[in-house]
């Protein structure tokens, strides 16, 4: 047990308030200036089933939901058994540690014990004193959990107060219920042996979807069209809740095809806009991705992955849409794919995507997965200054305006409806520099080649301006672990575990997935093994890497719907290093 951190899991059925309880706990820690990462394990069901919410809070930086489990709040019998039994596989999540405690209502009986500390409490009895149903038992249990690690009650009371803020009396009742739980534990139980230290000021606790929302707005987005689909909806909800405040527009149309065409229309008219979905909804958008590529209309597409095929596992995580995104649209046209590694980077790359789209006038994807879009992390600060790059825009009234002028960098001047003297046609048929179709009457092969080369040249321009690839503990590494997107935190923690065992391994973290930065080729040169870690079955990124760099790689993959866990991942990497399975 790491005494500098605490891992708490709230477990219950859907509808039990597991998530809101988890968020109260998470916020209590972030307000104390601790580093927090949460993990949301839930099912595609509105009532019933098993769901749990894990909070890892540490005095030191944390980059994943972590291993280890100190406290379980079990809202039903299943929760008591599930998290204490080391034989139950939850996709790599740790069972309750030997010194850990499980808090539950005393009415729950007949469970099997596995040696940890079982703490039955009168959760419902206390709850019923403050309310006419037992739902408030969550709050009582949270009080007890906070007492078990000696967190001051005032912090928790503040968070509960804010959570129920608008409902004054209800807030008071909840605070009182929590206090009883807190006092009960103090009186009857020994605290856990922890040595937590706190920060000097509160940290922001932000979800991946929120950060995407913040990033897009910071990048100048004024219009978002999307059709709800987990896990892309967390960003959509951010827009729904902030539209009036920021004077931005959220449109939920009849389907994803409409959504992407709307986003293209708004961008065409000169308003920064984006669309987003998960794999299923994005599949419907595919044709229009090519439209944006052909018309050279900037377009940011937020693609939040969940396991496929088809409806797949709607509430689980995977990195299985890379092939779809790379292959979306007939023909060749420029596209840029970004994959943030963490919540803060959702913000940073989200707004960068807005500028890249405007600069290169082509589709730019921001790819996350359920793990990243639905979990919360603490962030110390956001740099709110950002320079919006409008890209090339034509001045009014030009003779023979060439919207698709064949320039050296491939980027031509845009013109927006309403601008005098720049009327032109933007056409999904192949066209010349003026936007006139070259596919009717007689197809002009030279114009076609010129147009293709012009568009594709933008990718060369982009390549020259790409940032270098991130690495972690890489300078003396004998083995290279390569990852993309949200697995960075877990990979870094696995690297730390392996390094503690004396294995010289380092990580290459790819945020700019396509086009791939060829500096990765220099980085992996001479390494004993190149291990590609990916949350999918087929190694979609691995294939990209191999085809671009012509290197031999070794796979570590997971496709059970859950994220990697650091300990588990370190073991698997070690197996590969030691010569394979």
């Amino acid at each position, binding site marked *: 047990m790491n005494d500098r951190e605490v891992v708490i899991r709230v477990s219950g059925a859907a509808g039990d308030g597991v998530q809101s309880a988890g968020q109260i706990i998470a916020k209590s820690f*972030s*307000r104390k200036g601790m580093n927090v990462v949460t993990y949301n394990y839930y099912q595609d069901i509105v009532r019933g089933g098993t769901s749990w919410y894990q909070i890892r809070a540490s005095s030191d930086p944390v980059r994943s939901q972590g291993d280890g489990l100190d406290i379980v709040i079990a809202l039903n019998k299943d929760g008591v058994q599930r998290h204490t039994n080391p034989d139950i596989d939850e996709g790599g999540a740790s069972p309750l540690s030997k010194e850990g405690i499980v808090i539950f209502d005393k009415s729950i009986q007949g469970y099997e014990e596995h040696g940890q500390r079982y703490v039955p409490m009168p959760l419902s009895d206390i709850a019923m004193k403050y309310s006419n149903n037992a739902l408030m038992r969550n709050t009582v249990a949270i009080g007890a959990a906070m007492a078990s690690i000696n967190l001051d009650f005032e912090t928790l009371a503040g968070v509960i107060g804010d959570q129920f803020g608008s409902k004054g009396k209800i807030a008071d009742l909840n605070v009182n219920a929590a206090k009883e739980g807190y006092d009960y534990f103090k009186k009857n139980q020994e605290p856990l042996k922890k040595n937590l230290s706190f920060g000097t000021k*509160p940290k*922001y*606790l932000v979800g991946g979807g*929120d950060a995407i929302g*913040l990033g897009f*707005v910071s990048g100048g987005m*004024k*219009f978002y*069209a999307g059709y709800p689909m987990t896990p892309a909806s967390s960003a959509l909800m951010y827009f729904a809740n902030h539209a*009036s405040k*920021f*004077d*931005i*527009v959220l*449109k939920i*149309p*009849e*389907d994803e*095809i*409409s959504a992407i*065409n*709307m986003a*293209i*229309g*708004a961008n*065409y*008219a*000169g*308003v*920064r*806009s984006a669309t987003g979905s998960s794999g299923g909804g994005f599949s419907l958008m595919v*044709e*229009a991705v090519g*439209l944006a590529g052909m*018309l050279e209309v900037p377009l940011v597409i937020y693609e939040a992955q969940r396991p496929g095929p088809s409806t797949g596992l709607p509430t689980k995580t995977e990195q299985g849409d890379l092939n779809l995104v790379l292959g979306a649209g007939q023909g060749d046209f420029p596209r840029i794919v970004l994959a943030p590694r963490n919540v803060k980077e959702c913000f940073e790359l989200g707004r960068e995507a807005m500028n890249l789209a405007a600069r290169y006038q082509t589709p730019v994807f921001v790819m996350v997965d359920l793990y990243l879009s639905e979990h919360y992390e603490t*962030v110390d600060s*956001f740099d*709110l200054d950002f320079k*919006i790059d409008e890209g090339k825009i034509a001045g009014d009234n030009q003779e023979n305006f060439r919207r698709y002028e064949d320039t050296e960098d491939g980027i031509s001047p845009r013109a*927006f*409806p*309403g*601008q*005098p*003297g720049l*009327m*032109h*046609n*933007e*056409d*999904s*048929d192949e066209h010349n520099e*003026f*936007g*006139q*179709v070259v596919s*009717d*009457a007689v197809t002009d092969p030279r114009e076609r080649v010129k147009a293709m080369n012009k568009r594709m040249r933008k990718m060369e321009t982009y390549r020259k301006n790409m940032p270098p690839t991130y690495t972690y503990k890489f300078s003396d590494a004998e083995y290279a672990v390569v990852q993309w997107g949200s697995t960075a935190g877990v990979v870094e923690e696995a690297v730390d575990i392996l390094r503690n065992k004396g294995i010289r391994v380092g990580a290459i973290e790819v945020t700019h997935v396509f086009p791939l930065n060829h500096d990765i080729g220099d980085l992996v040169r001479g390494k004993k093994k190149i291990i590609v870690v990916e949350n999918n079955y087929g190694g979609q990124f691995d294939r990209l890497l191999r085809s671009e760099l012509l290197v031999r790689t070794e796979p570590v993959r997971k496709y059970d719907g859950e994220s990697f866990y650091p300990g588990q991942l370190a073991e698997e990497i070690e197996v590969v290093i030691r010569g394979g399975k």
Partner: protein
Amino acid sequence: MMESPKQIVKQTDYQGEVKADWCPGCGNFAQLTAVKMALADLGIEPHNVVVVSGIGCSSNFPEFIRAYGFHGLHGRSLPVASAIKWVNPKLTVLAYGGDGDGFFEGTQHFYHTAKRNVDITYMVSDNQIFGLTTGQASPTSELGMVTKTTPEGNIEPPVNPLLLALSAGATFVARAFSGDPKHIADITKKAIEHRGFSFIDVFSPCVTFNKLNTYDYFRKRVYKYEPEDPEDFAVAYKRASEWGDRIPIGIFYQKSEPTYADRDPVLSKVNLRESPYYKLKEQDLEEFL
């Protein structure tokens, strides 16, 4: 609201550089002329006009008019047109396309754009056939009609686009015929002036692939109709259902209702094209503390 003085705009101001390459005699020529006429008559300058289309013979329209043109995907003109109008309400936005484009591939957009009452004009070149793909049955092809894809006769009853528009909630529903460009222009002017979703279905003979619904076919049947009370939905529905030897053309229904943008809390007060970017402040992060 202050009206800005009307500019003198000539029909030739809308003369595109590219010559329309439809088959000689194609109905689309009449619509092209009519639209130019209407826009010029209304004194709208070409740079404030966007014509959005899908894919089909008819959808090549934006290439042939001097304005801002958007020639997009088969069936998808309406979402594009809606968004353009929303983000810059100063523009006059016209969507144009075929019957296959609008009532097959894009049916859902037609229905919902009408229901939303987006302030745009949607004109369909209804030739009861797929023209560009050389003569397959379309959603408005008559029962029994022999086409390339229905060698034994069409077995699907045709959709009545006017009834579809009315039941969806369109606030301006009209029908016209390519044989009378002046009449199309008159209706188009009213459609553009109407605040809300205006739909005009135009019988537009495809002289190459539709040997059934010819100019003669329509000349024999169509007659001009004007309702006593254009807001009477029941009458509009009844008259729009008339089919056979006598087919009415004209404006069947027109009613003033709030547009989508009127109802949107942001669009009702902000022109997004002109509004400043929102600059995030520290206070915007407070909810995360």
